């Protein structure tokens, strides 16, 4: 139990997806112009990561891992090179399903998400979550916690960046730095701050 809590914190803060691994930066930068859209993106990320990482874990161990087909008399079969296509397919399907479920049962949330949901299919952070899960050999519970934690970390980072950028809209910046340039500099400073969390785990 304690380990899982530690894993959650680690996934959320120490290994923050956008700020230490640079994953999902495209949406991170593009959708953080307003805090409201940042909140929507953060919640959607948590939901999708929390579902797809454990699901991909099940598919990987049951079908793709080396030796997974041992029960069928093919212990030498190694399909792990197919994992990329399988993961992308699962993510696209989950996003589509989530969209339909929300549209049917929670129309208010659906309209709040707007265009973010379909965009999440091509989010590097979501695919990255599944790939890290395989690389680090998490079990089912760990992968679920890792997915949720990574989503929460992304949400925290993107909401903070959105809030800072909303303030900066009133600042008088040099022309070339306006918009994209200053956003990178802010993200860099946030990344400096988040690197302090790495010390927290080391001690």
């Amino acid at each position: 139990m304690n380990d899982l809590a530690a894993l959650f914190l680690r996934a959320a803060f120490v290994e923050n997806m956008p700020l230490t691994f640079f994953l999902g930066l495209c949406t991170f930068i593009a959708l953080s112009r307003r805090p409201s859209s940042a909140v929507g993106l953060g919640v959607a990320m948590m939901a999708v990561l929390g579902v797809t990482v454990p699901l991909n874990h099940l598919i990987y161990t049951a079908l793709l891992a080396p030796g997974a087909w041992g029960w069928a008399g093919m212990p030498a079969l190694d399909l792990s090179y197919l994992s990329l296509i399988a993961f992308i397919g699962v993510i696209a399907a989950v996003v589509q399903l989530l969209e339909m479920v929300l549209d049917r049962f929670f129309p208010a949330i659906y309209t709040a998400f707007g265009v973010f949901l379909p965009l999440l299919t091509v989010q590097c952070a979501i695919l990255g979550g599944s790939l890290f899960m395989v690389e680090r050999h998490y079990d089912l519970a760990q992968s679920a916690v890792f997915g949720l934690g990574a989503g929460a970390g992304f949400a925290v980072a993107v909401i903070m960046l959105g809030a800072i950028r909303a303030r900066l809209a009133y600042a008088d910046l040099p022309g070339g730095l306006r918009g994209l340039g200053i956003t990178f500099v802010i993200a860099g400073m946030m990344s400096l701050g988040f690197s302090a969390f790495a010390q927290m785990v080391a001690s």
Partner: protein
Amino acid sequence: MPARPALWSVLTDPLVRQNPVTLQILGICSALAVTTSLATALTMSAALTAVVVMGAGMISLIRNHIPNSIRLIIQIVIIASLVIVIDQLLQAFLPEISRKLSVFVSLITTNCLVLGRSESFARLNPPIPAMIDGLGNGLGYSLVLIVIGAVRELFGEGALLGYQVLPLVDQGGWFTPLNLMLMAPSAFFLLGGLVWALRSVLPEQVEPPEHSAPAIAEDRA
């Protein structure tokens, strides 16, 4: 050859003027993660350029047969297959660099640059311009990666491609390596600075201010 100037600008525009990383905000994810050394940046650039060019060519070949409603899935499957091939090639011939790049080669699949170009250009144009557009964008992306990778390796380790350029202090030289350069934040700072420099040279890329100061009344009397 009347078509030549158009193709030429399709190739050269994305290099600086329409650079995919600094102007279109495409493919930043991997641009920062793999630039701790010049060698990984070069490998990543080559892999991505290959995927963009081939993916654009294939998608453009079948562009008239893709139903509109499932085009995203088809594009992703084509791109993912290409990425798997590249990944296996790297693991076979450059195992060292492939280990350093870890998941980032696989993440080319979801690189917005690849999908963005196939979505906005390749599926509307014949194969030759589509591939040239892919090549131009791939090279523009590579340019940014190589600049950032070279700066980070030069100042972080005093080396370029593994050769010691600046003699280190602990080997009797004068250069103290800046460890910050190898950490995540410096990549953000460098890219921010690069965007700033580029936009100072090309002022037409400057984004309009969201709010301007209210005009001060001239006559206060």
